[in-house]
């Protein structure tokens, strides 16, 4: 086995194993450390001692959700999750990856989305919404996550967002079938080459070619990679909750219809922990008339991961019996909320599914923030 640190340096991942003092801050906070065999601290130790077991036998490497709690908290700036990405990269290079992840990557390669659905169908959700083609020039470019575009569970939120932005008078454009997966998860499952050479290279040129002032993403995952990894020039990257919060503050978006519901909010890891966007989603919910906003205990930096990131949308994980999303929906129910609001298509899928499995569907509805906002729109909605 090659020296892991050296390998990470070679592929340009930010990792400093030698700084590790084996304190356990990473493993203690890792959301999957109790329910799976993954011990990120011990993994660092084994790597340091050059004593890693055969990677193919470490199924738990695929349990990591890339929530980056470990990266956020490590006192020595080791960036432990990058180790997992490095190890996954080695597995990818040798073709030893779980079948479902392989299929998702193939889908992206062939059709530009991990679901493997036809590229021509990407814009079907937008029919009848009259979204302007971005090529005609626009101020704000809408970028839909593959799930926002194809997944029937997510599509209502996508449509709602368009209605809201139109109602606020935003000059919105959409790339339609030209859009391709952002690759945030591709990078995190270790497919570095595909991410760098295909997705970023082509995607960056495509996004910049529109000439928009800003990009608004439906997903925190696209937002994260565009903002921090694409190196986009002359274009601001925003998550849709940031755009809505801004429109509300500037008075361009007016919410007048009361939504008489008790709502709590789940912070997505890629929006909250990793990018520190905590306040805007809350500001949007609080601006909805009639809405009673309540908080769960584990919020903001301590939010519990839904387990949808880092490729976990494509890989069940080793803890099927004991999902974090089960705990999360229970926590939401305990606040007395009828709605668990989310701001990410992955969170929506994971948490809605958990509510179903746990038989909480009657009590708790998992909804995207834009689905709530659209209900509060007056005439334009």
């Amino acid at each position: 086995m090659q020296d892991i640190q050296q390998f990470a340096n070679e592929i340009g991942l930010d990792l400093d194993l030698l700084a590790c003092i084996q304190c356990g801050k990473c493993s203690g906070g890792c959301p999957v450390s109790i329910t799976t065999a993954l011990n990120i601290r011990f993994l660092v130790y084994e790597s340091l001692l050059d004593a890693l077991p055969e990677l193919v036998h470490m199924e738990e490497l695929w349990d990591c959700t890339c929530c980056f709690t470990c990266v956020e908290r490590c006192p020595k700036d080791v960036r432990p999750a990058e180790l997992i990405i490095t190890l996954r990269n080695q597995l990818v290079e040798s073709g030893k990856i779980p079948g479902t992840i392989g299929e998702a990557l193939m889908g992206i390669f062939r059709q530009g989305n991990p679901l493997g659905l036809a590229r021509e169908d990407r814009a079907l959700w937008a029919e009848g919404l009259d979204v302007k083609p971005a090529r005609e020039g626009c101020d704000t470019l809408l970028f839909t996550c593959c799930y926002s575009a194809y997944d029937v569970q997510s599509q209502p939120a996508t449509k709602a967002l368009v209605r809201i932005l139109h109602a606020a008078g935003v000059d919105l454009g959409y790339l339609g079938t030209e859009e391709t997966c952002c690759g945030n998860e591709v990078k995190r499952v270790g497919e570095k080459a595909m991410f760098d050479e295909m997705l970023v290279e082509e995607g960056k040129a495509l996004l910049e070619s529109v000439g928009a002032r800003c990009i608004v993403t439906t997903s925190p995952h696209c937002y994260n990679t565009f903002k921090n990894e694409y190196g986009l020039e002359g274009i601001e990257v925003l998550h849709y909750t940031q755009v809505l919060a801004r429109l509300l503050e500037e008075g361009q978006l007016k919410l007048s219809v009361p939504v008489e519901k008790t709502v709590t909010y789940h912070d997505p890891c890629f929006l909250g922990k990793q990018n520190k966007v905590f306040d805007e989603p809350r500001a949007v919910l609080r601006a909805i008339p009639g809405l009673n906003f309540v908080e769960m205990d584990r919020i903001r930096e301590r939010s519990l991961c839904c387990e949808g990131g880092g490729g976990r949308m494509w890989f069940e994980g080793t803890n099927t019996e004991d999902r974090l999303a089960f705990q999360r929906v229970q926590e939401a129910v305990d606040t007395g909320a009828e709605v668990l609001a989310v701001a990410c298509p992955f969170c929506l899928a994971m948490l809605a599914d958990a509510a179903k499995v746990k038989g909480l569907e009657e009590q708790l509805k998992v909804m995207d923030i834009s689905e709530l906002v659209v209900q509060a729109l007056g005439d334009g909605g």
Partner: protein
Amino acid sequence: MMSEKSKPRIGVYVCHCGTNIAATVDVEAVAEYAQNLPGVVQARHYTYMCSDPGQTLIKEDCRALGLNRVVVASCSPRMHEPTFRAAAQEGGVNSYRTEMANIREQCSWVHHDKEAATRKAKVLVASAVAKVTHLEPLEEREAGVHPGTLVIGGGVAGLSAALDVAEAGFPAYIVEKSDRLGGHVAELGHTFPDLEPTADWLAPLIRRVEEHPAITVMLDAQVEEVAGFVGNFEVTVLQGGQAQQIDVGTIVIATGYQLFDPSRKPEFGYGRYPGVLTTWELEQRLATGDLVVAGRAPQDVAFIKCVGSRDIQLGNPYCSRVCCMVAAKQAQMVRQALPETRVTVFYIDVRAFGKRGEEFYDEAREAGVRYRRGNVSEVYRRGERLVLRVEDTFLRRTVEHETDMVVLAVGMEPRDDTGVISALLKLPRSADGFFLEAHPKLGPVDTTTNGVFLAGCCQAPKDIPDTVAQAKAAASSALIPLIRGTVPVISETAIVDAELCAGCGMCVDVCPYGAPALDPLWGVSRINAVLCKGCGACAVTCPSKAICLQQFTPEQIMAQVDVLTV
């Protein structure tokens, strides 16, 4: 212009510095080369020029050969220039006619190729010889000293320093920002490693200070301005809106620290859960005996160590040095107060150094305090209780530890106003923000500003015995100029050629020490040699080239440079 009697007779001394220089530079060849340089009467090489025999060599040559200039080719002048100047002076050569060629830091340490390094050393020596040829003798100068020491800060460090100064018979002035003496320590009920009540020893210390006739205590006061230099500081102190000036010879900084604010570690829920407190808050609770959380005595108390310390992401990379022992102390005290309560200390490392440190850690475990290894990652609520999520790294398992009270062992940080004091006294700070000592080993209480000394946690986190030891060291260093009664002042000052001066005043604006002033009668610049530090800012600014810095005149510098470009 060179006077007849100063026709150069130069001695050149090439040092081996053991093998530090000799391994990379052919010192013999350098000495041989120097022997043939113009004005050189004698050139030698020797193992350690700074040693006694080395210095004797210089002194004896000076006398025997009637030398009037000395060049030493060795290390950086930072360390040994005073040594060689003194040797030359003893040999009857004006000490300002010595020059050093740095063939160690600037040559042997940074090169590998012996031949090239030797060539470079020769050029450096030739350059030094060229410069020394043009050096004029200067007078040694001294200034008087205001007898007295200003102590900034009235905590344990300041109290201890002031008391030693006063006991030596000199006035000490304590300027304290708050309305009382004793600093942070006054708020500690008990101290480690003996669980002694703090008041037992602190109260008598404060009383001795307050009653000492030579100590002036100024509370609710702060230093507004500091002018002057070692021996002659003029300090403006602001107290109750009133400014007053105190003249002192030396200054001890004992401004202490501030506690880390754990709301910067949001994962611990400090400020959100009433059951999460800092060691500082628990100290007050232990003093009043009120340990109740959520209406009842806690069944379980958990300490989290290293909060705000050893954390690169926070910008606090250092260990705060006391938190391990504070936790051991408080854990024992909780066990004493609540014998039924389970007390666990979660740690990364236990640092129990110093006298009785390890024994105190033993006592904590004997008292039933559990130690578990793991850096707690987060705190959340479960019903009425709190949960610590932590990997017990020995079990190699992440656990949820249910508890009632979480105690954060918060570390020390540089005070927010460190920057203000550092600007007032031109004191550098280390990367971590604390004041920087002059030398980590040889000058741990000194600063780069002569006459200003450091004591206590303003320099780095430390416990009470170390603080007092450093305070006593600072006091004794601060006493040296007071006892001598005079301080040497530099001789390499700037001088003005009144004939050339156009009276533009740019030197007045540029000087950081306020040394130049325009003569009200003649309208030309005059430089106060007592204030001048020889930085040369005026000399390079003056558009009329009327100012030159002695020992760095254009003629001298050009001579030195011309050789280099050969």
